[in-house]
């Protein structure tokens, strides 16, 4: 084992170690949320996950975007198969250890290369859509600064990783043609072989340098990207799976009911003895810790594509509400709370008011367009409703019109001030 194998092993261990640390931080952040109780219909959920996360069913609404997204996704998965070989080579100092497979090896590498080129093509189009075309959802208020940079960084990193992969292969192929003993023939690489002639005038040692640099940069880049995920919106590549698995399978119109309230209301209606030992809990959500872990996972899964905001009737008509911002704010706040040594002012800055304003919450029509359109079934509406519940039950601070409506329901069993005795008037009208 040479020094470079030891460096390789250290780099991989460091990359994976950091990823484990990030995963723990992520799960701590998500588990700040409340329990969601027992999960039913597991088989159905699994199939649902296959359709939405693997099959990306909802992405194909816009066919061009859907296909390109699928190519990038499939390309990444396939090209990462190559990682197996890179790991073995790196640890044991071998070179293209799987090339003994012969023709099938060349076919596999060629396929990966075709995908790499397709990924580059798709990513360039994505970059163009995001930065050149005027697509409203990429230009909302919440997409300034870091979120925009993050999105572009991801695209750049993807292109760079693909280029490194192709460069590594092209240089390798050029060296194979020179019959360098270190670079035994591994078959014909479909794409990179086209670029190999570019190295014709180079010295062998320069080509070796290019090949080695690309190889190292490729693997180090992958390890770095793996650890970039936690700081980025790109976590969806992992969290889309649990997110769709735990998504609501019951009709979207069915909002969760609060069992603590049920007990109290039953006691009030003298249907059951009041439970005096009832622990006092906050109704609704003022902060992320009042939400469920599923709602927090939703927030970490969000890749800020903005389909929800684009579909939101309130947002389309110029209101402050943006469902995507609800998710981004939830994530930002959950992230802040994982940090130790917080100043009091930050600790007291709750999700409500300091991140999400009441005006945003009261603009929602609960139409479910945001939930329907989300490719990975994130539910911003459930967070909005939980926060309204806090405002109304804990602060009694609903807009005046709604207070009047609720008073009517209490007084005369209808949201308007009509007498219950007039309920049958329609018969004779």
């Amino acid at each position, binding site marked *: 084992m040479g020094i470079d194998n030891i460096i390789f092993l250290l780099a991989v261990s460091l990359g994976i170690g950091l990823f484990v640390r990030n995963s723990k931080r992520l799960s701590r952040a998500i588990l700040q949320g409340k329990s969601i109780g027992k999960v039913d219909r597991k088989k159905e959920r699994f199939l649902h996950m296959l359709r939405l996360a693997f099959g990306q069913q909802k992405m194909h609404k816009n066919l061009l975007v859907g296909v390109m997204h699928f190519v990038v996704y499939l390309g990444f998965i396939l090209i990462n198969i190559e990682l197996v070989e890179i790991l073995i080579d790196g640890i044991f100092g071998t070179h293209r250890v799987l090339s003994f497979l012969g023709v099938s090896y060349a076919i596999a590498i060629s396929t990966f290369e075709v995908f790499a080129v397709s990924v580059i093509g798709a990513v360039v189009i994505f970059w163009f859509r995001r930065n050149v075309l005027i697509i409203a959802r990429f230009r909302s208020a919440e997409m300034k600064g870091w979120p925009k940079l993050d999105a572009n960084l991801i695209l750049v990193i993807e292109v760079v990783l693909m280029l490194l992969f192709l460069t590594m292969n092209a240089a390798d192929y050029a060296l194979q043609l020179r019959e360098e003993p270190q670079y035994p023939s591994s078959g014909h690489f479909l794409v990179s072989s086209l670029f190999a002639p570019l190295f014709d005038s180079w010295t062998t040692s320069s080509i070796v340098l290019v090949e080695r640099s690309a190889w190292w940069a490729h693997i180090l880049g992958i390890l770095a990207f793996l650890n970039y995920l936690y700081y980025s919106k790109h976590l969806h590549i992992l969290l889309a799976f649990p997110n769709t698995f735990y998504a609501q399978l019951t009709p979207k119109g069915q909002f969760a*009911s609060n069992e603590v309230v049920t007990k109290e209301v039953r006691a009030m209606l003298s249907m059951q003895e009041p439970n005096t030992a009832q622990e006092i809990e906050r109704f609704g959500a003022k902060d992320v810790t009042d939400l469920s872990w599923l709602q927090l996972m939703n927030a970490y899964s969000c890749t800020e594509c903005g389909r929800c905001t684009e579909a939101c009737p309130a947002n*389309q008509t110029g209101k402050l509400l943006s469902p995507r911002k609800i998710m981004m704010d939830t994530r930002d706040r959950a992230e802040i709370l994982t940090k130790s040594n917080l100043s009091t002012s930050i600790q007291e800055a709750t999700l409500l008011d300091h991140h999400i304003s009441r005006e945003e919450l009261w603009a929602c029509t609960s139409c479910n367009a945001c939930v329907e359109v989300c490719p990975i079934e994130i539910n911003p509406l459930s967070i909005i409703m939980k926060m309204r519940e806090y405002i109304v039950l804990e602060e009694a601070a609903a807009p005046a019109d709604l207070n009047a409506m*609720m008073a009517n329901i209490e007084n005369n069993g209808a*949201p308007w001030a009509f007498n219950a005795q*007039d309920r049958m008037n329609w018969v004779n009208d």
Partner: protein
Amino acid sequence: MAECIRTQEVPEVLFWVGCAGSFDDRAKKVTKAFAKLLIDAKVSFAVLGQEESCSGDPAKRSGNEFLFQMQALSNIEVLNGYEVKNIVTTCPHCFNTLKNEYPSLGGNYKVLHHTEFLKQLIEEGRLTLNGGIFKGKRITYHDPCYLGRANEIYEAPRALIKKLDAELVEMRRCKKDALCCGAGGAQMFKEAEKGNKEINIERSEEVIETQTQLVAAACPFCNTMLSDGMTQKGSSVSVKDIAQLIAEAKDL
């Protein structure tokens, strides 16, 4: 319903009229049209009358889970007291609440929206419909959020419009992608938040784009929002519930 108990009659279905259906002038016409259709199809039905109370939907969507459950639990007590099994309602909000949110509180009923029920009556041959005045007319349909996305009922209302021998013209955004009328989530009862347009105007403009003269609704709130939108746009497009269209086609 109390009357049924006295005469020991068991009605086939309870017609949950809803607050809009009881008190709102436009919605009352829908209530009446639907009742006429039920009578025409010889469906024995009852209403709760004064014993009916708000389903609790606007309270829950406003965040008042307490008031919602008060309403729900007392309604369930009444419904269970009458041993109600089948409910039909012309309001998608009541429909959604009764169907989806009452079971966990002890209210288990087979709840149908009136468009589903009417479709069923036609299929069973109990309600006949032969084109009538809407034959060949271009009609568009507005999906109510609480019927469509919330409960995935897209086909029943459309099937009924086709039964009118009318040409169904879809709006730019329909079915899963339909744009809300702006009334859901208790917005019906409050001023809209600051913006640059009212949602019902945005939707009304989509209706006008279809160049139809008639938009079919299936929800009392959508009905109000679109009617107001048409008035504000100075448009001559009329807004009617599907039950009204069928009743008119049958000249009831």
